[in-house]
C-alpha cells in the first residue's frame, strides 16, 4: 500500500514538475499567433491605411500596423488557448502547439493576454485611443464573442464572428486619420460578406472534422444543401459589394476590372457548388471555391494597394 502511494506521489510530483517546464520553442510561440491569419490582418489593415488620405508620419503608420498585427496574433493565441480541447480532435488543428503538448495552456494564456494588453496600449500611445479601443474591441469580439460564445453554440458562428476578421481596415484607418470613414466600412463589409462562403466551402469538405469536435457548423446543423444555398446567397450579395469601392470613387479602373471578373468567378463557382451535390465532384468544387475565395479577396485588396500605394490609380468616372 505504502509502495503504491509512494509511486503515485512520485508520478504526481513528476507531472507537476513537467507541467511547470515550458517545452515550447520560439517557433511554437510564433505558431500560436496564427501567422497566416496575421498576414491577412496586416494586409487588409495596410489597405485600410493607404486608401485613407492622411499625413501621418510613416514610422507612426508602421508601428500602428505592427501593433494591429500583434493584436491580431494575440487574439489568435487566446483562441488557441480556449479551443485546445477541440483542436486536439480535428485533423486540421491537432498539430497546433497546445494539443501537440509543446506549450502549456497557461503559457498561451499569459502570452496572449500580455500581447493583447501591450498592443492596445502601444497603439493608443502611438496613434490615438479610438484606434486602440477598436483594436481592443476586435480582440474581445474574436476571443469572447466568437471563440467562447458563438463558435460552440450557433450555426451562425462564423457569420457574426467574421466581424472580428473584418475589422482591421477600420482600426487601421482610425489609426492614421483619427476617425472612421465610409471607405473602411465598405472594406469591412466586403470581408464580412466574404467570410461565410469562404468558411462554409471549407466546412462542406471538412464537415466530419467539425462533427467530431461538436462544433455546430452550418453543414452539420442545417445540412449540406442548405449550406450550398447560403453560400450562393452570400456570394450574390458579395459580388456587387466587391464593386462598391468603384462606385464610391476609391476603386480605380484596374479595381473595377478585377472586382468584376473576380465577382463573376465567385458567382460561377458558388453556382457550381449549389448544383453539384453528390460525391467527389461536389467536394472538388467546394474545395475550388474555398481556394478561389482566398485569391478573390487577395486580388481585391492587392489592387487597391497597388492603385493607392504605388500611384496607379485611374478613376473610372470622370
Amino acid at each position, binding site marked *: 500500500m505504502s509502495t503504491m502511494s509512494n509511486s503515485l506521489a512520485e508520478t504526481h510530483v513528476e507531472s*507537476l514538475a513537467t507541467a511547470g517546464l515550458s517545452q515550447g520553442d520560439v517557433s511554437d510561440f510564433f505558431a500560436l499567433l496564427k501567422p497566416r491569419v496575421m498576414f491577412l490582418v496586416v494586409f487588409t489593415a495596410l489597405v485600410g491605411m493607404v486608401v485613407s488620405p492622411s499625413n501621418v508620419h510613416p514610422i507612426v503608420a508602421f508601428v500602428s500596423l505592427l501593433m494591429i498585427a500583434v493584436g491580431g496574433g494575440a487574439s489568435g493565441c487566446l483562441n488557441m488557448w480556449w479551443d485546445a480541447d477541440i483542436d486536439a480532435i480535428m485533423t486540421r488543428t491537432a498539430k497546433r502547439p497546445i494539443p501537440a503538448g509543446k506549450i502549456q495552456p497557461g503559457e498561451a494564456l499569459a502570452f496572449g493576454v500580455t500581447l493583447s494588453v501591450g498592443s492596445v496600449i502601444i497603439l493608443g500611445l502611438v496613434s490615438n485611443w479610438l484606434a486602440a479601443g477598436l483594436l481592443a474591441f476586435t480582440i474581445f469580439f474574436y476571443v469572447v464573442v466568437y471563440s467562447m460564445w458563438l463558435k460552440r453554440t450557433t450555426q451562425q458562428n462564423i457569420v457574426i464572428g467574421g466581424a472580428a476578421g473584418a475589422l482591421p481596415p477600420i482600426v487601421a484607418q482610425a489609426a492614421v486619420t483619427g476617425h472612421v470613414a465610409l471607405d473602411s466600412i465598405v472594406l469591412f463589409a466586403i470581408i464580412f460578406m466574404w467570410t461565410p462562403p469562404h468558411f462554409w466551402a471549407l466546412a462542406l469538405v471538412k464537415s466530419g472534422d467539425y462533427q467530431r469536435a461538436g462544433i455546430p457548423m452550418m453543414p452539420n446543423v442545417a445540412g449540406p444543401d442548405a449550406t450550398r444555398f447560403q453560400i450562393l446567397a452570400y456570394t450574390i450579395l458579395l459580388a456587387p459589394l466587391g464593386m462598391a469601392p468603384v462606385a464610391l470613387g476609391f476603386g480605380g479602373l484596374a479595381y473595377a476590372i478585377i472586382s468584376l471578373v473576380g465577382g463573376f468567378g465567385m458567382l460561377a463557382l458558388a453556382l457550381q457548388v449549389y448544383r453539384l451535390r453528390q460525391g467527389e465532384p461536389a467536394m472538388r468544387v467546394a474545395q475550388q471555391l474555398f481556394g478561389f475565395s482566398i485569391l478573390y479577396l487577395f486580388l481585391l485588396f492587392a489592387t487597391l494597394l497597388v492603385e493607392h500605394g504605388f500611384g496607379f490609380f485611374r478613376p473610372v468616372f470622370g
Partner: protein
Amino acid sequence: MADQKSSRSLTPEEQKRRRTRSLALALTLGVLVVLFYVVTIAKLGPGVLQRPM
C-alpha cells in the same frame, strides 16, 4: 514540493529551448526600446528639444 520541482535538472534539449526563448525575449525588449525612441522622435519632430523652462 517547490524544492522538488526546482531540483529536477533540465535536459540539454530543454536548456537549449529555454536559452532561445530567453534570447527572443531579450531581442523583443530591445526592439521595444528602439521602437519607443524612434516613435518619440517621429512624433515630436523638431520640437523634441523644445521644453517649457
